[in-house]
């Protein structure tokens, strides 16, 4: 009887170890990035503010091999203001002396899409015991929403064209001022790329 009891305990311990090994996940990643100063000549002419609404849902379930038990959804809502500076790269302005034309390059987003922390309004729903939501996951959702906004802005011709037109006006004004102080009049033609 005593030996049976010992064998039972050993068998139980062995099965528990098997479960732990089966549940264990191993994943390692390594990253390296070299950060460099970026000298630039970018003229921002339009600042656009966007109201972003971010909704993230996680659907968990308990996997039992042959079946799965669904659990209530975890939800994260966030409403905030993001803003983007749009303008042109002055290095790409093309000056043609022969034809006396100045070509204004296409507009682009200058720097990163930034966010106003004072505008954040966050809500969490159905937080489970042992929830996967933490600071790192929430900030990754935020980064995703900023990246999506960047794509949206870049594909919006109306905003990009407006920024380009304003850049043309500002460059023309600068050149006119130079000519004015020299007592001359500028005859340049401005072309939008």
């Amino acid at each position: 009887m005593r030996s049976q009891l010992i064998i039972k305990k050993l068998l139980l311990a062995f099965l528990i170890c098997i479960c732990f090994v089966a549940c264990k996940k191993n994943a390692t990643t390594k990253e390296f990035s070299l950060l460099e100063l970026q000298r630039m000549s970018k003229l921002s002419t339009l600042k656009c503010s966007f109201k972003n609404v971010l909704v993230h849902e996680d659907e968990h379930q308990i996997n039992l091999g042959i079946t799965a038990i669904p659990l209530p959804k975890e939800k994260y809502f966030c409403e905030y203001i993001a803003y983007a500076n749009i303008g042109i790269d002055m290095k790409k302005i093309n000056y043609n002396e022969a034809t006396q034309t100045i070509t204004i390059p296409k507009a682009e987003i200058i720097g990163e899409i930034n966010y106003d922390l004072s505008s954040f309004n966050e809500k969490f729903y159905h937080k489970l015991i042992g929830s996967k939501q933490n600071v790192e996951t929430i900030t990754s959702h935020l980064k995703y929403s900023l990246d999506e906004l960047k794509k949206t802005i870049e594909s919006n011709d109306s905003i990009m064209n407006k920024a380009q037109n304003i850049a043309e006006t500002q460059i023309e004004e600068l050149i006119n001022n130079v000519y004015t102080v020299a007592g001359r009049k500028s005859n340049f033609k401005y072309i939008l790329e």
Partner: protein
Amino acid sequence: MANNNLENNIIIEDNKSDNQSNEKLDAKEKDAKSNKKSLLNFFTPKFIITITTIIVAILIIFNLFFNNGTSSRTVVTSMLQDQKVISELSTLIVPCGGIYEEKNDKGKEILDIAYSGTVEYGLDFSQINISTDEENKKIIVKIPSIYIKEVYIDPSSISLIPEGKYNKTTEYLQKCKDDLSSKFTNNSDEMYNLAKSTAVETLSSFLDPIVKNIGDGYDLIVE
């Protein structure tokens, strides 16, 4: 008589051996039966149910705490709120990282946040002053002061020790932003000078051909 005795002895001995083999067989059968019984006693229904319950409980607990959500959905909606005309020339972006440290009254570290982001330098393009020195045939372009245009913290770069509370995310991001801003405000002469020299180079290279086009021997000075 002797033969009969022998025969009797043999019979008796045969019987004895038969009995012995029978006894052995019985013993073996008894052993087999007892082994079966002991196995059955070992894997009792109660034992099997206990094992199964423990395995299921472990699987449930691990799935709850360590298993990632099997499906996720993220929806982002953006609405243009405001457009403002600006005139800012960006001349330097400094990518940087840091660790924000928070200590309690006893000097013990209670929070560490690793982050990365960028600091952007620039000037007000509309404040560029253009004048002329007719005597020396110079067109003088004076650039305004350089300032820090934007401080940006990459949200996906945040990592905390200990693991932070999810509902304090904006608080942590603000701490990182303030930390980064303070580093560049107090100790950034090198970056300021680099941003300024880039602005000078930009305007020089852009306006030089324009000034030459004026003719009359004008030279450009950007300062």
